[in-house]
């Protein structure tokens, strides 16, 4: 964008020693200290702490002094049926969410973009952004309300149509779909913002030129709008793929129950139960580390694929 406005922090950039340089910019570096401390304590020390997956963790000894046990925990983990089940559940929920939840905001943003600026557009945007700002506990409350078997509106409609009411939150068959749909309900509106922002950045002259060439609205959408937001779409897709291991802990934690563990128990809920409720820290940390590594690999692959396809990628 405005790449030309590079700032000159220092005149003596190349010559001179480090200390005078640091002294000259001492306030700048000082202002960075709190953030640096935060990142070290709450991000990098836990990364080191993930090494307890390879240790026999003893809270009295701490992370450093606990004895190493190598891959024992992982061996045990990979022998557990439950591990494959939570891994698969996580991936399955995320993939369903990606397939339906990723294109939806793009379509809605394109639809909104076809509206003239004005009250109607503002009103619709206001309404669809709201669900993003409420907590998953509130969403849970709202879901139990509208999906209730006896008095929820959804089942009232189903019954009025002559069908049997559905236990959206209690029946194992429907629980995951309910999670996916409610996740999309909560996030689709807000996710349109990034595309709408990209669309406001499109040069109006492109549309004018297209009009002169005799393009109709559909042509403009396909040949002007879409190519212009393509890089945004790719960036969002990469971050989504990098987040495939996040199947929505808070959402599922609020609503799940042993009756739906078979399909809805995900890595994070499992880590919570095993680590914090059963106190098996090493096991839980091993699952968590495995998850982080898979996440990281997915992100790198997605980014590489995007670059090979000629896109910018996220790093």
């Amino acid at each position: 964008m405005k790449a030309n406005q590079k700032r000159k922090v220092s005149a003596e950039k190349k010559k001179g020693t480090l200390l005078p340089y640091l002294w000259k910019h001492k306030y700048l570096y000082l202002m960075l200290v709190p953030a640096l401390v935060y990142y070290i304590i709450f991000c990098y020390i836990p990364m080191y702490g993930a090494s307890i997956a390879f240790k026999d963790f003893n809270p009295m000894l701490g992370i450093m002094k606990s004895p190493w046990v190598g891959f024992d925990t992982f061996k045990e983990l990979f022998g557990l049926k439950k591990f494959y089940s939570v891994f698969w559940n996580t991936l399955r929920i995320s993939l369903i969410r990606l397939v339906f939840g990723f294109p939806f905001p793009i379509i809605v943003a394109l639809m909104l973009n076809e509206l003239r600026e004005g009250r109607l557009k503002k009103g619709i945007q206001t309404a669809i952004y709201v669900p993003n700002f409420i907590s998953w506990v509130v969403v849970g409350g709202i879901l139990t309300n509208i999906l209730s078997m006896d008095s929820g509106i959804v089942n009232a409609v189903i019954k009025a149509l002559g069908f049997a009411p559905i236990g959206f939150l209690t029946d194992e068959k429907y629980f995951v779909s309910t999670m996916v749909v409610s996740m999309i309900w909560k996030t689709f509106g807000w996710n349109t913002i990034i595309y709408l922002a990209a669309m406001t950045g499109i040069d109006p002259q492109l549309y004018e030129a297209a009009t002169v060439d005799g393009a109709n609205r559909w042509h403009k959408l396909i040949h002007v709008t879409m190519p212009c937001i393509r890089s945004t779409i790719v960036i969002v897709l990469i971050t989504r793929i990098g987040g495939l291991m996040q199947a929505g802990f808070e959402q599922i934690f609020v609503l799940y129950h042993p009756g739906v563990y078979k399909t809805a128990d995900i890595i994070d809920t499992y880590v919570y139960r095993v680590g914090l409720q059963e106190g098996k820290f090493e096991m839980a940390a091993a699952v968590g580390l495995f998850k982080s590594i898979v996440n990281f690999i997915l992100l790198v692959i997605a980014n590489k694929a995007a670059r090979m396809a000629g896109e910018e990628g996220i790093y």
Partner: protein
Amino acid sequence: MRTKTVKSHPVKHSAGSRIFDVINITLLILLALVAFYPFWDCLVVSVSSLKSYLSTGVHLWPSEWSFEGYSYMIKNIDLWISYANSLFITVVGTLVNMLITIMAAYVLSKKDLKGHRVLMFLAVFTMMFSGGIIPTYIVVKDLHLMNSLWSMILPSAVNTYNLIVLRNFFADLPAELEEAALLDGCTDVGVLFRIMLPISKPAVTTVTLFYAVDHWNDFFSAIMYINSRAKWPLQLFLRSMLFENDAAYSGSGESLFLLGQPMKMAAVMMAIIPIMCAYPFFQKYFSKGITSGAVKG
């Protein structure tokens, strides 16, 4: 950026184009209703009597009004304790967030500062890889933050996404302003707080809102780190209201059971009212504030 009106379609269009408009607007209005109706349904149930709720179920409009749910909630001391806790976490937490984030974002917006790339990488890498739930839990525990409201503030003191949004915004501001102020003898701290911040209102407001909403809605840190009921934030209180066995909740379990769904929905409404009140103030900044974040830097 450029002028605001991106596309001014000429008013006269072909019939096909007009049909498209009708369908498009209808679909979008339906979508807006779908997004909004669940809130309305909760509101209606919360002001309905339990009797009418149990007999027919109430939708669209209450058949028999009752504010018993609200009067019960207002008298519930636990609600106010959790409200106070959430308020503390939100206000103090957001202040901490903003102070640290603004300073770091400003420094990181200086692309030719020595060490810039390393520091930026340190921040961005945390978005790609994390130690996980358990190691973070151990750190919080070792810092003796367990069961303290600070456990809901410090471990989320910086959100890297917000940091990048602000940094990109600062980087796009004209450099001449700072240079003039520096020549006048202003320190970097002075430049940031006296010159850069006042002209960064859209981005700062947006990020403030993101942080505040995250704190208000934070449920994850609460179930991780908070045990005692006196420290419960609103979301934990709400969860116990909504999902725990009613009778187990308090000594007066019976009356709770009788109040049932309308009371639960009253609790839900009371949790979202503060957000709904703040929302209009922030909304106008959204697209401006986010635009800077959308542009990758």
